[in-house]
């Protein structure tokens, strides 16, 4: 009987998760959706504690208190610009939890001298493998995003061969554990192998490809929870895990499509490694001269404009320029300029990164426009203001078949009447590709820290009021 109550509570939790995610379809209902999902989680936890065979509450209380304190501090103190790191870290913890739970279950079977049956041993190895890869893979992604290690791909000769070999080794260890779950050396080998694989699979992936990696790891953390659900025979875990798995898969696909690359190419292509061909084609594109302008020059053009589109990229996040951007937009709007924001799906380091930063700076979300919707508006727009974005505005992606980013959907900023590009220097972006936009006649380059530059623009624009 009590077991049925718990199952019912898990079902209720799953329903609340689904309704919660459903409410994320609009920013107005989204806070309520998040609350519903949190209530669902609380129900699942309380039901587990009250009804099942839990006897040792002290150890649980200690774990929950420590975890809540760390989680709350992280969540309340993290800067919005650091959100990709935060999500990577949370993904990693989810993966670690799955590995730990699957391992603990195996140990309990061993203690009871009772062989796991049916799909349980397969679920255990999957939980350990996916969870382990998610854990260390996310830590590497975190380190790259936090700039604790180089963002550029780390490659070596024979890398793919080594990874393939280790992948086969992991499969062999999985089979070994399924055949004899109580063979501890083999099981430990599997744990070690999955942790190693997580590291090796993420180090060759460059910083600009992090949106894909984080989405994929998000999906893995769900699938690992799913596997754990099979281990425990718990439908609540299976349903919730699959929801998260599905979410990660969809986001991964959106990110890959937005770069016109296959998942395999992102994972194994080491995009952004210093590539002779790319440098050569970049040199060919480096025609004409770049014109450097001051923020005051830009202000003169702004003062004669009716419409402007701001195109934010990772550089805006690095410079923490989102509040300055909002100030500039406010000032321009006061002078009758219509301001919108064009958001490329892979701008920044995770899906939706730019939207969160601009929302933080109180930019109303109606002004944040998606790529397909805003692209037709560029030809009618007086000024496109590109802030720290590079590859997502590179016209070569439309026309230059030899370019590494050819075919990637871009924001057509070059079709605006004037283009201001705010950049720290002429260094090419992460993909290492030169950008002909910088040499166009209607492009004005303004070099310097994006935040300083924009604040100077605000001052200069104010003079024209």
């Amino acid at each position, binding site marked *: 009987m009590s077991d049925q109550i718990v199952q019912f509570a898990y079902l209720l939790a799953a329903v609340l998760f689904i309704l919660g995610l459903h409410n994320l379809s609009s920013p107005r209902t989204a806070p309520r959706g998040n609350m519903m999902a949190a209530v669902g989680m609380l129900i699942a936890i309380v039901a587990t504690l009250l009804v099942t065979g839990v006897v040792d509450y002290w150890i649980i209380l200690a774990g929950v208190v420590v*975890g809540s304190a760390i989680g709350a501090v992280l969540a309340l103190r993290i800067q919005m610009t650091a959100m990709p790191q935060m999500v990577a870290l949370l993904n990693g913890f989810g993966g670690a939890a799955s590995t730990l739970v699957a391992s603990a279950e195996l140990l309990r079977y061993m203690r009871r001298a009772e062989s796991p049956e049916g799909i349980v041993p397969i679920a255990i190895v999957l939980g350990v493998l996916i969870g382990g890869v998610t854990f260390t893979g996310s830590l590497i992604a975190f380190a790259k995003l936090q700039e604790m290690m180089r963002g550029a791909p780390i490659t070596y000769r024979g890398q793919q061969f080594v990874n393939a070999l280790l992948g086969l080794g992991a499969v062999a260890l999985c089979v070994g554990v399924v055949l004899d779950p109580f063979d501890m050396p083999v099981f430990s080998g599997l744990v070690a192998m999955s942790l190693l694989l997580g590291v090796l699979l993420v180090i060759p992936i460059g910083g600009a490809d992090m949106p894909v990696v984080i989405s994929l790891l998000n999906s893995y953390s769900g699938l690992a929870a799913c596997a754990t659900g099979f281990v425990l025979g718990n439908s609540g875990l299976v349903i919730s895990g699959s929801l998260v798995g599905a*979410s990660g898969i969809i986001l991964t696909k959106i990110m890959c499509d937005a770069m016109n690359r296959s998942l395999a190419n992102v994972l194994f292509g080491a995009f952004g490694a210093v590539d002779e061909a790319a440098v050569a084609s970049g040199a060919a594109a480096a025609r004409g001269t770049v014109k450097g302008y001051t923020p005051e020059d830009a202000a003169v053009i702004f003062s004669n404009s009716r419409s402007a589109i701001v195109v934010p990229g990772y550089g805006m996040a690095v410079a923490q320029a989102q509040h300055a951007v909002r100030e500039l937009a406010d000032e321009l709007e006061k002078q009758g300029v219509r301001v919108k924001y064009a958001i490329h799906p892979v701008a920044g380091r995770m899906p939706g990164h730019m939207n969160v930063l601009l929302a933080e700076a109180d930019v109303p979300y109606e002004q944040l426009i998606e790529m397909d919707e805003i692209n037709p508006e560029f030809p009618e727009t007086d000024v496109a203001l590109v802030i720290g974005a590079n590859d997502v505005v590179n016209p070569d992606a439309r026309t230059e078949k030899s370019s590494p980013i050819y075919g990637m959907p871009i924001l057509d900023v070059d079709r605006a009447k004037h283009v201001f590009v705010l950049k720290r220097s002429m260094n090419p972006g992460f993909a290492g590709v030169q950008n002909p936009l910088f040499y166009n006649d209607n492009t004005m380059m303004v070099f310097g820290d994006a935040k300083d530059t924009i604040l100077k623009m605000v001052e200069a624009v104010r003079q024209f009021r």
Partner: protein
Amino acid sequence: MLDDPAVALTILVLALFVGFEVIAKVPPLLHTPLMSGSNAISGITIVGALLAAGHEERTLSTVLGFVAIVVATINVVGGFLVTNRMLAMFKRKRDRP
């Protein structure tokens, strides 16, 4: 409950489809909160961690369970709180002070 692989697989596949349907309707505007929120949901593994840590025998699996509770709680509490913080920032023009 999930001893029958066919039942288990049925639940898995149906839940995946529900997931695809629901998530596909989330606008790109909210993709970051979607990630952190779904992350918190994947912290459901905490249920397994509670079971692993809370059994009477104190063994290595209790230790693993304890560590699992800590990381899963970070996931749940951190995920829902940071999502809540982010969602509170999305405002319409007329909501602005």
